[in-house]
């Protein structure tokens, strides 16, 4: 039994918070994407060969998308639950007749929605710089939604785990961003010399970037189904952790 009114209230409130900073929320990704295209697409890309038959400028689009998606989704979602804990307004949520389902669909749904809006903005911005077409648009949308869901859940866990602002920022800074940069955002891992091409496969982000790249251009470093499988496994693990958090009240209830 899910309280849909409660869920809707949480969801719309989170989105309203997002719209309060709409200008910044839209401008930041447009600006970063443009900068990446100017530097990597135009300046460096001109001297790069096509990768797997794809122009370098187009090649980096899925990587860029993943870079922004992972960072923004994680931070949006973690802030969404961390701030009420920090300011104390979480008391209302904890005393309300809402459980794990309402909270997750509300908070994580809102974080996902923001991420999808963001993805659309990035794709439109990229179109201004390079010509590209998407080979499997439906799979691409499904894949983006899946990744957004998984990292919204991940961010949610971070926001509950963190007990100060430093911890909130440390995981994205120390793990997410480096792994994304090393995860084939701007290159194909074939380009790495041995043994780095094998070591790179230990980086889970490689599978995410590669999966998205496959939905765009039909070719990638690793098999698409492995990418889907890993994303699903990550999502399931996050759901498991969150279920545990709610059952025990860890970091939520004193």
């Amino acid at each position, binding site marked *: *039994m899910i*309280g849909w*009114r*409660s869920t*809707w*209230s*949480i969801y719309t*409130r989170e989105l*309203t*918070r997002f719209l*309060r900073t709409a200008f910044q929320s839209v401008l930041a990704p447009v600006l970063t994407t443009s900068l990446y295209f100017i530097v990597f697409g135009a300046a460096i890309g001109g001297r790069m060969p096509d990768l797997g038959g794809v122009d370098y400028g187009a090649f980096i689009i899925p990587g860029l998308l993943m870079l922004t998606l992972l960072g923004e989704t994680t931070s949006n979602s973690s802030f969404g639950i961390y701030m009420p804990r920090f*300011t*104390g*307004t979480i*008391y*209302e*949520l*904890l*005393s*309300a*007749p*809402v*459980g794990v389902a309402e909270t997750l669909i509300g908070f994580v749904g809102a974080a996902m929605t923001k991420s999808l809006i963001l993805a659309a903005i990035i794709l439109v911005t990229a179109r201004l710089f390079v010509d590209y077409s998407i080979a499997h648009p439906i799979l691409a949308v499904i894949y983006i939604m899946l990744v957004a869901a998984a990292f919204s859940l991940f961010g949610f866990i971070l926001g509950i785990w963190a007990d100060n602002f430093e911890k909130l920022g440390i995981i994205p800074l120390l793990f997410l961003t480096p792994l994304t940069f090393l995860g084939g955002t701007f290159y194909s891992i074939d380009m790495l010399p041995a043994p780095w091409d094998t070591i790179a496969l230990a980086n889970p982000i490689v599978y995410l970037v590669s999966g998205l790249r496959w939905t765009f251009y039909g070719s990638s470093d690793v098999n698409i189904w492995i990418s889907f499988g890993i994303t699903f496994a990550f999502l399931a693990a996050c759901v498991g952790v969150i279920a545990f958090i709610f059952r025990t*009240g860890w970091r939520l*209830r*004193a």
Partner: protein
Amino acid sequence: MSEPILDIAGLSKVYPGGLKALDNVDLTIRKGEIFALLGPNGAGKTTLIGAVCGLVRPSSGTIRAFGHDMGREWRQARRRIGLVPQELATDMFEPVMRAVSYSRGLFGLAPDPARIEEILRSLSLGDKRDERIMALSGGMKRRVLIAKALAHEPDLLFLDEPTAGVDVELRKGMWRIVDEMRDRGTTIILTTHYIEEAELMADRVGVIAKGRLLMVDEKDAMMARLGRTEAHITLARPLGALPPSLAQYPVELEEGGASLCYRGGDGTGRGKAEVAEITKALIAAGIDYTGIDVRESSLEEIFVSLLGEEERAA
């Protein structure tokens, strides 16, 4: 006795650090009453409220609200419970009306702007509905929190120090609001440091210290049981000995016979009546006096003496 709306049995809470904030608390709250929880800082008042409202996980004991076990049927129960926390915690950027509407939705009720407006007006926030919460004064913010707690029309309301940091005028306004809620049939449990407040508003009072509920009683009964009248009558001329006509009263001479002191009665006014009789007896005995000072002990003194007994017992 009317049906219990809240039934707490054997409730204990040990915080992770090992601190026992609640120690085997039993408490039954009746429908429609105003119950004041009195206790010094750190007594466990907020912890007790938190345990009922789902903010604190009890270490042991059971809580039943409206016949629902809070451990299992918390959804049904929480829908009917409202909480105004001790700390001012609100989303500062949110306009008042939206914040209060959100609370209503969060508790699963359909939007009802007219009802929300009514709640805001009853809290004198009608003209602040579109204001951001950060633009309000502290007292107004507290009333926004009350409005949020009332938005889902709870039958049981917790007010954790509703008048802390609120000026006299506002405090009176708060008392009026509580009165109105009582008239509408809402059961209210409040905590306070102002004993005057408990004396004025509550039907029953519970005294808590170090996690133990020391005493729960009707306010009037508590006053009657523990209340005292103290009177000092300043005599025109010092007396060497008490006149025999006063022998039946609990009086004694003080300050070398210059003052007659009465300590007795209970919280029902018997003491005042006896003081009146004593003055008549003094006149009848031809003893002149120049001043009378009569004082009723308050809940405050009862409270302090109870805590003192507890300390000595410990």
